[in-house]
């Protein structure tokens, strides 16, 4: 394929664009091919004619414009950062825009209806700014940027989900936007968008030179008199602008910006200019194709199928396939956390114990009632309602912390945790599928089983892909990103349907201890204790694998088998927790790190300390969720994700600035 010269490659793609555009038009106008022809020939202004003129044609233009803009923006970002995993979606722009719009709709609904795009733009800029701050100068070119973006996506996603859940009646119209829909009713958005995309012209003319110099490396570029940072900053802002206005116009459509530059490169685009131009062209083609699929699904099912859902459905597997081909090298750089104490002293132990006692007292005794706050030992009835929740929260916290720690040690990756690796997303996706297939009636019975199957499936994929690439952090993160984005698209799709089941699902997704029965709470506790004890049995193996596979093998360990056993253990633990609670982000990631920062650096103390910290954090999160907006309750998963996520981001920024 690489043998095709650039002009003929462009020409071939343009030729492919033509029949696809016709197909799209035909599907969007809801007409047969001959009718379409007759319509174009006739002069009569029927409704069908207007539909073609005011809905189908604008939609076609919109697909081409936004596709090209997203492709160009992605290519620009990837070339600036020299990072093939960067795209508006992976560095947090999309989720920032989404949160901005949700906030605007809730706080100033009239403003949001007319000028919501400014809120989206601001949200995107702020989110990306934070991610850049986290990744730092040196991290932009590598995995830190992507991991920071992923953390930001999880955090902002949790915040937005919480807001939507608490205000369930007011956000209906948002969901269609959130699901990414290209449908048009006039030329308004096309006319709004195209002047804003004119920025692409100077970019295409001016960007290639500095970008080709960058390809030689930053030092070489500076050596030839290029003021590196200002140019990169301007180009970065241009890329963000292109993607923000596109997101504003059509909603959340992921993957296009990530996939097209990679595809362009695969199809032989070598020079900076060629890659930019070809990415724009390919982006238009790709979005047109996915939107045609969405229209087709729409026609077959008689229901609205948002374009964003179709894009994610195609994009996620393609991304994985690309990853399999391209990601062999291990990227040792992670994100920087503050280093903390060298050893775990009595003073720290006392603080942790004090915190645990406080958390337990508050969780069990301090509550709100009709007439305000009261601190008292609960009555028998209230006790019977309260203890299963408290126990579930604590055991789940401990379980997540243990599974996070195991993953971090096994994969020698400080950012491994069930949520980052996509185990939670896989479990959630399976539950959502179960809901779509079986309906809401049997939801309670099917959900745990589906969660288990889902996280096992993700683990199997991880093992298959991971073994070839030595469990490289980039690959793991990529799988998490693909699954997370797929999950998000599916979630937006289900939400956009707007039935009562949507909110039941959102409630489960939020991760709540509300429905935990005494039996479930006890089983969870037994399970977590059992798996925790099993993990302790492997502490020598964990220490050795943490140093390196070679070291572990030289001490007589069967490394592949040990890794398999421990990974299955993690999947079981994660499935156990997720099936009961739904996904809880960040806790499994954070607890082991706090333990290390407190000085628990060896496996045994770290495991014990992380588990207790996880339990305490979840206890507090559950309590906050129960009391903060009494009598309403915020699901513990959201509280924990937002609290731990904010703290994590704070730590990352502190670690960067230190």
């Amino acid at each position, binding site marked *: 394929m690489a043998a095709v010269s650039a002009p003929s490659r462009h020409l071939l793609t343009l030729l492919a664009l033509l029949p696809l555009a016709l197909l799209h038009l035909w599907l969007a106008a809801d007409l047969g091919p001959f009718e379409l022809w007759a319509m174009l020939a006739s002069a009569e202004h029927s409704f069908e004619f207007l539909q073609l003129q005011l809905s189908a044609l604008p939609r076609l233009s919109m697909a081409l414009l936004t596709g090209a803009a997203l492709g160009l923006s992605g290519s620009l970002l990837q070339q600036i950062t020299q990072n093939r995993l960067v795209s508006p979606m992976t560095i947090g722009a999309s989720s920032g825009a989404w949160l901005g719009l949700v906030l605007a709709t809730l706080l100033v*609904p009239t403003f949001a209806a007319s000028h919501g795009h400014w809120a989206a733009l601001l949200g995107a800029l702020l989110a990306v700014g934070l991610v850049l701050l986290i990744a730092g100068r040196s991290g932009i070119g590598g995995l830190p940027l992507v991991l920071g973006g992923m953390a930001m996506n999880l955090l902002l996603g949790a915040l937005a989900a919480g807001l939507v859940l608490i205000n369930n009646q007011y956000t209906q119209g948002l969901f269609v936007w959130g699901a990414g829909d290209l449908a048009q009713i006039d030329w308004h958005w096309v006319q709004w968008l195209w002047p804003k995309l004119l920025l692409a012209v100077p970019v295409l003319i001016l960007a290639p030179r500095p970008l080709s110099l960058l390809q030689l490396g930053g030092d070489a570029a500076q050596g030839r008199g290029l003021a590196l940072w200002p140019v990169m900053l301007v180009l970065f802002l241009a890329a963000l602008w292109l993607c923000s206005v596109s997101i504003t116009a059509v909603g959340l459509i992921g993957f296009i910006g990530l996939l097209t530059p990679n595809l362009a490169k695969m199809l032989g685009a070598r020079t900076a200019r060629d890659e930019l131009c070809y990415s724009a062209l390919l982006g238009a083609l790709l979005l047109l194709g996915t939107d045609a699929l969405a229209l087709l699904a729409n026609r077959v099912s008689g229901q609205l199928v948002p374009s964003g859902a179709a894009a994610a459905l195609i994009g996620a597997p393609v991304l994985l396939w690309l990853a399999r081909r391209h990601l062999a090298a291990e990227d040792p750089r992670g994100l920087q956390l503050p280093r903390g104490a060298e050893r775990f002293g009595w003073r720290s132990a006392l603080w942790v114990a004090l915190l645990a006692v406080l958390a337990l007292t508050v969780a069990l005794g301090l509550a709100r009632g009709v007439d305000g706050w009261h601190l008292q030992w609960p009555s028998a009835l209230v006790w019977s309602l309260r203890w299963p929740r408290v126990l579930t929260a604590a055991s789940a916290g401990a379980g997540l912390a243990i599974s996070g720690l195991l993953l971090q040690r096994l994969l020698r990756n400080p950012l491994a945790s069930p949520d980052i690796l996509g185990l939670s997303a896989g479990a959630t996706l399976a539950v959502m599928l179960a809901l779509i297939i079986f309906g809401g009636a049997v939801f309670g019975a099917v959900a745990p089983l589906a969660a288990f199957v889902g996280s096992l499936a993700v683990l199997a994929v991880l093992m298959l892909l991971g073994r070839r690439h030595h469990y490289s952090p980039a690959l793991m993160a990529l799988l998490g990103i693909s699954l997370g984005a797929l999950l998000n698209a599916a979630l937006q799709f289900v939400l956009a349907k707007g039935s009562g089941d949507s909110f039941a699902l959102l409630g489960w997704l939020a991760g709540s201890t509300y*429905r935990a029965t005494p039996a479930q709470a006890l089983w969870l506790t037994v399970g977590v204790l059992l798996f925790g004890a099993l993990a302790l049995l492997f502490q020598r193996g964990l220490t050795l694998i943490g140093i390196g596979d070679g070291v572990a093998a030289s001490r007589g360990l069967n490394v592949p088998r040990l890794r398999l056993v421990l990974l299955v253990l993690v999947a079981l633990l994660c499935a156990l927790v997720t099936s009961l609670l739904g996904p809880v982000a960040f806790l499994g990631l954070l607890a082991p790190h706090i333990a290390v920062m407190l000085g628990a650096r060896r496996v045994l103390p770290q495991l014990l300390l992380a588990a207790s910290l996880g339990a305490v954090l979840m206890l507090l999160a559950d309590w906050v969720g129960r009391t903060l907006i009494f009598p309403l309750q915020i699901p513990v998963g959201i509280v924990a994700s937002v609290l731990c996520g904010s703290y994590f981001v704070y730590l990352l920024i502190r670690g960067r600035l230190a």
Partner: protein
Amino acid sequence: MRRCLLGFLLLWLTPAWASDAPRVAALSWEATEHLLMLDVTPLTVADAGDYRAWVVRPTLPAGVPSSGSRLEPNLELLAELQPELIVIPPLLEDIRPLLERIAPVQVYQGFSQQHDNLQVHREAFLDLARALGREALAKQRLQAMDAELVQWRERLRAHYGQRLPAVTVIRLSSPTAAFINGPNSMPQHALALLGLQPAMDLAPSPWGITQVPITALGRIEEGVVLHIEPFAQEAQLFASPLWQAMPFVREQRFAAMPSTWTYGGVFSLQYLAEAIGEALLKLPSESGKRPNRP
């Protein structure tokens, strides 16, 4: 029975002594509506604030506290309020064992495509009345509603003549998408009770609604389209040429109906029928009947 009647009187005459009034917690809005129509003021209502904002009728007295969300009502608050009966929707069936520790629980059947939602709600209302010893009142209220519906039917016939227009009720969700109330939705039941046919054929769904692209509405060749207010982007959509070209807009077969809750209980039908009737009476009498079939 006498004790209940007495209680009923006490409730109306001397609220200060009304200790005999049943202490019932309603964890869904249908249940709230049914209780209020039985002249029972609920002890607490799930999402009481949203009920006042969205359902509006029948009016919930201002003093009734919220008991948390309808998905996850606050159990500890319920325990503190000590109800005598808790009425729950099927959605909460899985926490029934927990609720039963607090008070006896009554559950009714919910929205589903397997059964006639209207009939199910009627039975749920009568069941509740039986549990509270207020069957006579319940039957009286249902009869009053039926009489009201007959009146609306006659008013429509007086306006439109013997052939009534076909009607479809939609709720706009964005300028490019709309929810259509199809078979088994409460608006369609209200239409049927008014003797009106649907203007668009749709497959039944559990909640009775289907979301379609806005252009699909252009396929409604005959019959009236009513949209439920409010819709925030009304100005933007209604001014667009495409909307203006929709057959039902061009031929003035389109009207707005006042904000009405479409997932309510039995009596939401009466409110829906009122809203539909009022909207239809505003339209010229030839609306929606253009193609004269032999």
